[in-house]
């Protein structure tokens, strides 16, 4: 299967006041469609930075990141946003639901940004996804009425609703207890298997890593290892 993400010798330097923070120091990575890839490493190792670059919310200082065949450094802010909207789903550590919208509306939101679907089609798709994540009867709830695990399920549904080839999850289980976190990883894994969606998630939880099809280890801004773990949907 073709690579959906290709990072070549990527460097990212942040300017933090007068000091330069070298978050990534020459990372190269190739992710293939259907992978369920974990990026592991201690805090401050550069996991999130790498995810940001792959997720097109940031561009590298040097080197190149290609997502779905497009070099992110050559794209305008607008094009990057468009790329995110159509090709990438996001799952955040802190869930990041829009608090004033209902569960249904949160999931529907990316579809509305995309445009192009009729209301009935949107309803059907959102409904199906909510069923799939086990929140079929919570559609009208507000995020504040849900537990952490439920919120993250909504976030998963939101990430998948546009049927993106790639979903990024930044420490999706860090704010959940281990049981709930495990369930979320199972859910993501199910989706990965069902639709062949590529998942890249950062974590430092060994049990989560054990579900991954491959684990990329990062330390101090460098990839130290890439090891195949459990079986992935498209990777096997």
């Amino acid at each position, binding site marked *: 299967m073709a690579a959906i993400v290709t990072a070549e010798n990527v460097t990212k330097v942040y300017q933090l006041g007068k000091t330069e923070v070298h978050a990534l120091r020459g990372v190269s990575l190739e992710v293939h469609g259907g992978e369920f890839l974990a990026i592991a490493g201690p805090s401050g190792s550069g996991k999130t930075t790498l995810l*940001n670059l792959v997720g097109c*919310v940031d561009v590298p200082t040097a080197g190149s990141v290609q997502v779905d065949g497009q070099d992110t450094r050559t794209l305008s802010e607008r094009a990057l946003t468009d790329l995110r*909207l159509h090709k990438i789903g*996001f799952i955040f550590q802190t869930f*990041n639901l829009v608090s004033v919208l209902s569960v249904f509306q949160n999931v*529907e939101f990316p579809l509305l*940004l995309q*445009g192009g679907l009729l209301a009935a089609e949107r309803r059907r798709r959102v409904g199906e996804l909510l069923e799939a994540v086990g929140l079929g009867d919570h559609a009208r709830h507000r995020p504040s009425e849900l537990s952490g695990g439920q919120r993250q399920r909504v976030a998963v549904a939101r990430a998948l609703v546009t049927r993106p080839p790639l979903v990024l999850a930044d420490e999706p289980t860090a704010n959940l207890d281990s049981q709930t976190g495990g369930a979320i990883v199972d859910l993501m894994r199910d989706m990965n298997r069902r639709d062949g969606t590529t998942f890249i998630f950062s974590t430092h939880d060994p049990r989560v890593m054990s579900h991954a099809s491959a684990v990329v280890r990062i330390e101090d801004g460098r990839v130290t290892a890439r090891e195949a773990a459990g079986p992935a949907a498209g990777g096997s």
Partner: protein
Amino acid sequence: MASGVPTRWRQAGILLQIAFRNLFASRAKTFIVGGIILFGAVLVVVGSSLVDSIDVGMERSIQGSLGGHVQVYDARSRDELALYGGMMGESDLRPVEDFARLKALLLAIPGVRAVVPMGIDQAMVSIGNLFDQALERLRADVRRRLAAPAPPQEDPEYEAHKAHVRRMAQLLEQELLGARAIADMSAAVNRERADAFRDLQRVVLDPFWEELDRDPLPALELLENRIAPLALDGGFTFVRYAGTDLDAFQQAFPGMEIVEGTTVPRGRRGILLARLYAEDWLKLKTARRLDKIKEARDLLHRRIAGDEELQRWVKENQAQTRDIMLQLDPRRATEAVRRLQRALGSRETDLLRLVVELLATDDANFDERHRIFYRELAPLLQLYMVKVGDVITIKAPTKSGYMSSVNVPVYGFVQFKGLERSGLAGVTSLMDMTSFRDLYGYLTADKAEEIRRIQERSGARAIPRDQAEEALFGGGGSVVEAGKARAFDEGRLLAGGGGRRREDLFSRVYSQDEIDRGVALNAAVILEDPGRISQAIRDIEAMSAREGLHLKAVSWSKASGLVGQTRSLLRLVLYTAVLIIFAVALVIINNAMVMATLQRVKEIGTMRAIGAQRRFVLVMVLVETVAVGIAFGAAGAALGAGVVWLVGARGGIPATNDTMYFLFSGPSLVPRLGTVSLGVSLAIVLLVSMVSAFYPALIAMRVTPVEAMQTDE
């Protein structure tokens, strides 16, 4: 994409939904921001409705009274034209010498409907005293009796007038007695007083009046020369008048209303006294004070009890009964006693005590007493010192310094719609142009004719100054010779109309040409279309330049001086208040929205991460603020409209003093809700909320999707 449209609507829908839910989620902020906007909108709607109504009313009043649309006067005048007078009295205008020519030139300008000449100034009006008036009536009787072959035996009118003068003399005697008791006067003054007093004592006794019957003239002379000066009332007042072409004036100014009497017949001399001037200066003071108390009670709900001013008026009414007492001749005095006894249910027989009792008013009996005064007593009195048909003497210093005076018949009393009670703009009387020119020493058609005749008869001719020397001392000596040659017949000159008699002057009808030819101080220009004032001013000034005249044309608003400035001042106050309110609103809304935006950085970052464009975020924040703006602005406008409607439905805002009466152009201001003021208020509110949302929206737009990833919060 065929299905794109519904999605876009849905996107707008979700924007609105996010906006409204955000607003609801932070209620406190929303209500603070909304409250300010609401208040601002109410202020704009109510304030501009009020100011608009005042403006429209004053515009109508001023345009319809003296202002017209444009005023024209000589640009070389020392002062600017102030139709209603300025701080320093009347403006010093350089006269326009040939009004007829000005009129023709102005009327030739397209869109000019009428041109009315004016000359506004102040003058003194002599008001005869009551004793003089009573004496005048007696004198007329005596003349009538002397002219008759045999005086009638029964002459009740003569007897009544005699009795009246005698009664006045008695009242004067009592007054003088009182004065002598308290005054400590020098010997000389005392001697003079003693003489006067001796005369008075003679006059009040029967023999004097029997002598009047036998030989009236010496007795009348004594009354006139010795007694009348002792009655100190009367004197003069100042009248502000506009000399004008009265016919043209009446056609041009629809605000002019005759409240009593008639207009001055076409081309005649005459004056229409301002009703307000008559009320304030010519009305019996007692009646005037009763009016004022009634108004204060009815309109302002003031009460005599606890109101020092009203109590003072009541006291003055009880103390100053002299005018009433002097006016009532014995016959009427008896009638007054009878009426007052009945109305007051009193057995008192002394008129003075009855009058004092009538005027001893308090809150309980005031309305009743006011009614009794006007129903029972007033018909026996002359309420105004001047009445329709009287001829009054008006005096003023001419521009060359000497006093000039004219007699003008009073044809009626006049007021101007909307300015009925304005002490500033409602006191202008209207006089014919010819009398005005007489009073001002300007050359009238009559005087020009007179001078022409004198020149002709005396053989004098006008010689320009630069040729005078030559004419006097040069060769022929023609001037002196000619003067000797012709006989100077003064008698014939006088008979020829040089000193026209009063009756002649009053019955003479002046032609339009005579009225137009001569000076005017300014001219009111009435336009076909009041909307084209500035165009007309440009046209007039262009004409002036072309014709070599030095004309200045100003709008009615500018010409109305202080009065016009009041309008601008009101508007300025309103705009300033609105400006301040909205400046504060701007800061507060901006602040609140910045805070709200900073609180939502993560949410906005999330939206950006999952694919929302910057524009979406920008619009989202704008929509939020503008939604508050529209919602509360509309509510405020509706509330303001409700207030305006309610005020209108309850009869408007009552004018509680003359200034307000003037501003309101009437007894109350019924504010009219203008669609313009509604629209403007909504536009302002929208603008303010957009502007105040702009900065927070920029902040929101700059939020990067990376912010969504931050976990350290």
